[in-house]
Each structure stands twice: as C-alpha cells, then as structure tokens.
C-alpha cells in the first residue's frame, strides 16, 4: 500500500517539477495576491477631487470660505498624500455639472457667514463607495476646527447606493471575464489538445476566419453570462434602470466588453498548448484585471503604479461605463470615452490574435 502511495507521490512530484512555468506561477500567485490585493483594497484613498463654491451674495470670498478651502486642501494623515484636491468654482451650476459628469466627487457650498441657521451644503457622488463618507467627515472636521457651528446638509446626488449595488455592477464584468477565461479559453485549449485545430490547419480556411469564428462564439457565450448577471443584479440588489435607452446602453456596453475580453483571451489562449499553464496565467490575469477594475473598491484608493494598470484594463472601462449608466443614469456623453477605450482594446487584441495564431505546427 505504502509503495503504491510513494509511486503516485513521486510521479505527481516529477510532473510538478518538470513544468517550471507552473511552479513559478504557483509561487508567484500568493505574492501577487499580497501586493495587488493588499494595495487595491487596503490602499489609502487620497487626492479626491472636490469642488468648493461660495454662495452668492456676497460676490467676494468670505473669511469662512477662504479658510475652509485652505484647510480642506491640507488635510493629511501622517506620511500619506493629502486627502482632497479642492478646485474653487465661482459658479455653483458649473460645479454641479462637473460633479454629474464624474469629474469631481463632491461639491461643497459654503454660506456667507458663520451661523447656525446657514447650512453648508455638501453634494456627493454617492455612486462611489467610501469616498462620500470621507469627504463628509473632512468637511465636518474643518468646520469644527474653524469654530463654525453651521449645520451640514448632505445630498447624495444619486440617492442611497448600497455597497451591494456598487459591487453588483462590477460582478457583471467578472461574469464576462470568468465565463470567457474558464469556459471559452479552456475549451479552445482542449480543442487544441484534441487536434481539432490541426484539422483546421489542413483546410483552406483562413487564419482570420478561424480567429473571427472563435471570438464571435466566445463573445456570445460571454454576453449570455454578463446579461444573466445583469438581470440577477436587478432582482437582488435592487438597482433600477431608468429608461429603455439606459437598458439598451447597458446591453451595448456588455456586448463591447465581451468582445474585448474574449479577444484578449483568444489572443493569448491560442499560444498555449497545455491547460495547466493556461490556467495559471488566467488566475493571474483574473487577479490583476478584476482587482484593478474598481469593482470592489474605488480606483482612487490605489497607489499610482497600480492605477496605471487600470489604464490598459478593459474591465476598468467596462465597470466604469456600467456604473455610469446603472447607478448615475449618465449617457453616451460620459461613457463614450469608455466605449472608445474598449473598442480600441478589442481591435488591438483581435489583430494580435490573428497575428499570433500559427498556421503551421511549428
């Protein structure tokens, strides 16, 4: 009995060692978890852009306003960058417009004088988790420090958004990613292992057709997964889609995100011949892309080096676009940039996939 167990142990271990790539990935995974997960989730939020406006009249800055702006701009915790980046607006309407476009996270409107019947109005982008609470406590802290006993009126411009709703939108992207990575990608490599691709290669079918076929089938599968999660989100988290137009926009974003993620997977899955190697790379990619997508935690809380990853992360644009539509009811004018980024990404990945798909066995 012992002999059999030892034989199996030896065989497994030999196979483990014979694949250095998988060994390295196995060791690297926990380290990456520590670095990326730790930084993405536990990072200190800083440089929150907010706007500050002085109520009119009077038409010149009051001491309260000037002092409050300076104080807000200099809130820091020991050893950390400052919490808020304050932009002074002269016009409340302009400030609110930037807030609704997502350029700033909050607008604080100061009254003309220190008194307990003139309220400080605070408008926050409530589609963001954590940030509104930070801004609110900062404003209250500054007023207390200045000895101003004005009450603070907080308006959540998108209403009360629960973390579940914030996170639920991110899960749509996760569904797209996992269904593509673990469904489509593995199926692609299995086909390769079973020689289905070798069968393609001796037929006149073009490399472009092979990639187009694989990507389109993968896109449809991913779309079904993403759409199902979207429907489940509506049922479970209680998000409300305001109009038919929003609904169609959500579908458009999910679709384009599916093309992007599927192209990414196909472009590199077609280079792998073994499931094990692929699986370790996928786990790694899933970690990086999902953690930096902002699905869990606001991107603003990430260190700069990690934030650079979001720039090339299709999931970030997907999550951002979906949140804009679902949580903020924003339209094409705001999510246009996300859609363009997703499309550029998809295009690049499709070209990469076609270019790297080998037409011969070598």
């Amino acid at each position, binding site marked *: 009995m012992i002999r059999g167990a030892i034989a199996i142990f030896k065989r497994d271990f030999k196979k483990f060692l014979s694949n250095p790539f998988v060994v390295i990935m196995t060791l690297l995974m926990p380290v990456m978890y520590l670095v990326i997960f730790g930084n993405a989730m536990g990072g200190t939020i800083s440089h929150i852009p907010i706007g500050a406006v002085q109520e009119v009249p009077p038409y010149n800055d009051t001491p309260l306003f000037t002092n409050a702006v300076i104080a807000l701009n200099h809130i820091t915790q020991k050893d950390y960058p400052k919490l808020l980046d304050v932009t002074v607006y002269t016009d409340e309407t302009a400030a609110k417009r930037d807030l609704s476009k997502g350029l700033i996270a909050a607008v604080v409107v100061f009254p003309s004088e220190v008194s307990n019947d003139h309220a400080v109005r605070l408008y926050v982008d409530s589609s963001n988790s954590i940030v509104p609470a930070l801004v609110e406590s900062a404003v209250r802290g500054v007023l207390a420090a200045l000895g101003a006993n004005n009450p603070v009126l907080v308006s959540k411009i998108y209403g009360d958004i629960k973390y579940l709703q914030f996170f639920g939108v991110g899960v749509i992207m996760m569904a797209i990613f996992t269904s593509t990575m673990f469904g489509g990608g593995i199926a692609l490599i299995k086909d390769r292992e079973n020689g289905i691709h070798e069968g393609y290669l*001796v037929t006149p079918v073009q490399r472009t057709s092979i990639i187009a076929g694989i990507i389109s089938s993968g896109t449809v599968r991913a779309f079904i997964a993403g759409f199902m999660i979207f429907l489940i989100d509506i049922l479970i988290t209680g998000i409300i889609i305001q109009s038919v137009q929003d609904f169609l926009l959500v579908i458009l974003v999910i679709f384009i995100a599916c093309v992007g993620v599927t192209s990414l997977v196909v472009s590199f899955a077609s280079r792998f011949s*073994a499931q094990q190697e692929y699986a370790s790379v996928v786990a790694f990619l899933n970690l990086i892309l999902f953690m930096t997508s902002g699905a869990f935690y606001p991107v603003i809380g990430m260190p700069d080096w990690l934030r650079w990853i979001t720039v090339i992360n299709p999931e970030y644009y997907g999550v951002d676009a979906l949140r804009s539509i679902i949580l903020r009811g924003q339209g094409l004018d705001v999510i246009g940039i996300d859609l363009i980024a997703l499309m550029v990404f998809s295009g690049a990945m499709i070209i990469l996939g076609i270019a790297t798909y080998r*037409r*011969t066995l070598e």
Partner: protein
Amino acid sequence: MEPLQKDRNTDHPTQDDAGIRGYTPHVPGTGGCVTGSGESIISIDHLTKIFREKNRTVTAVNDITLEVKRGEIFGLLGPNGAGKSTLIRILTTLLRPTSGTACVNTYDITKAPEKIRTIIGVCPQNSTLDVELTAYDNLEFYGQLVNVDERALDARIWQLLKMAELADRAHMKVQTFSGGMRRKLEIVRAFIHHPLILFLDEPTIGLDPEARREVWQQISKLNEEKTTIILTTHYMDEAEKLCNRIAFVDKGGLIALDNLENLKRLIPAGDLIEIGFEKMSEDVLSAIRENTLINSVEVKADHLHISAKNGSKVLPAIVAIFEKFSIPMTSISIRSPSLEDVFIYLTGKKLDEGGNQEPKPARGGRPS
C-alpha cells in the same frame, strides 16, 4: 538469415539509382512547378527537415527525392520514427521544410500553401474528429471549412455516410463509435470535397483485423474515383494489399521506391524453402548443395533453410534427396519473399523494430 545478407554497399539500391524510376527534376529557376502537366502529381526534390531541440538536432527527413503519379495509391512504408509523418506534414503544409522543394499539383508547398489546402484531403494519424459532435455534424462542419457548396453538402454527407456504412448512426455522437468506425468517418471526411490527393497517415493503426479490412475496402473505393492516395504505414500487408508503388523510408531517408514486383526482385535469393527434420546427415547437405538452382543452404536447429531462384521447381529434387538417404522430413514449407524480407534485406532490420524516435511537435506547438 545470413544468406540474405549481401554486400550492402554494392547491391543496396539507394535513392540515387534503382529507387527513383522515371524521375525528372523540375527546372530550377522557373520558380513554379511543372509537375501539374505531366503524369506526376507530387514531386519532391531533395527535401530535408531538421528539428532542433535544446541540445540535439534530429533529421526527420533526409534529402528525399521522389515523385508520385496521378491516380496511384502510393505507400510510404517504414518503421515508427522513420519520418513518414513528418514528410506528410510537410506535403500538407503543416510544417515547413528545412531545405529542398516539393510541388503538389502545380503549387509549391512553401509558396502557395493556401492553394494546396484546397486540393488535398488529409486524415492525420491522430484523430481530429470532434467526438462531442455527431457524425453528420462533423462532416457538415468540415464540409463548410473546405468550402463544399452548401446546396450539395447535405446530399454529399449522406453519400459519404453510406460509403462508410455509418448512415444509421449519422446522428449519434462520435464518442460512441468504435475505433474502426471513427477511422472510416475520418477518411470519408477528408474526401468530402473530392480532393485531388488524399493523404492517409497510418489509416489502420490500432484497428482490429476486421476493421482494417473495411478501411482497406474503403480506400480502394476512393481510389476508383481517380483520387491519388498517399498513405503511410508500418504494416507490410497493408502496403502489399493496397499500394501501386511503395517507398521504403528509414531514418528519414528514401531507401527504395518501386512497385511490389520490382521490390521483391531486389532480393537475389528468390524463394525460401524450410524443411523440418529430426536428424540430419552431411550427405544430404552436400547433395543438396550440388543443385545449381540453389543459392544457399543453412541448418538451423531442426530446420533446413534453403533459398532458391525457383522454389517450386527445386523442391521435388530436394525431397528426392531426403528419400534417397532415408532421412524423414517433419515439415515442408515454401514461400516467396515478402515485403518484410525485402525491407530486412535493405535495412538489416525488421520493420516493427522501430528506429530512431521521431520528434513529434507537440500538438499545435507550444509557445516558444
């Protein structure tokens, strides 16, 4: 087996002489292939394929030059690892040759691989059927890949299914099929677009005798439709049964190429006679050796191995000698040399002994 072994340096036909009859090299410098017009459909010219791995190089195909005629069944016969599959993979555009050229119909394999893919049908050694699809779906899928007219496709699929005697299983998943059924399905699939040339890489490997016979029948049937068939095998009987011409390949090189009759003539010894006995006397041996038709006599334990130009004529005389000396015979057998004997004679080893291992590229290749 000593008598079969002659001086291999003089009698051993190499690819330089006896092997390649009727070979006309295509004109260098024209860039194209002149094969298409003649009776040859494939011409291979000094083709070499070298696989380089980390610290060793393996010459899988070594300077092979040969021609395949239009409409014939051409056999590539050799032990495992002789380079047969590599040669097939080069001709089917799956691998690029290291040096040399090859023309398939009028196309150069390195210059017009797309054109070649439209006129060939390939049935690789390892199955490429999708076992999770039905027989019908497999054929339909492949038919669309090779551009069979959509209107004619359904009829063609049923025709092929009937040919493979699988019509009653058309809508069953391939994973429920036996090895022989899968093989037949794969062979007809390769034939769906009426290719000019059909490549079959070890079509009956791992099949039981019954299934092999069925596959052979199918191959003969396909050949009746004027398709050139190139098959690789390491089974003698398969090559003997099916092939018009046979190329012996060993260690990547071409050893001989001819039809069955001519290949058998390469052995100078002729027929083999085996006589069993209980005891032997020197008188018998010397009497037999006196017969001028007999090439060699050899005693092996309780058997006498005699090789003679015309076995059936010599046999009565031999029997008479045994009777004359009152030596009882326990058995008599006479046979003409088999393809295997020819192969042993040419290479000094048995076919299924295998030789160098052929480095098979991992399926689909690995990222490198």
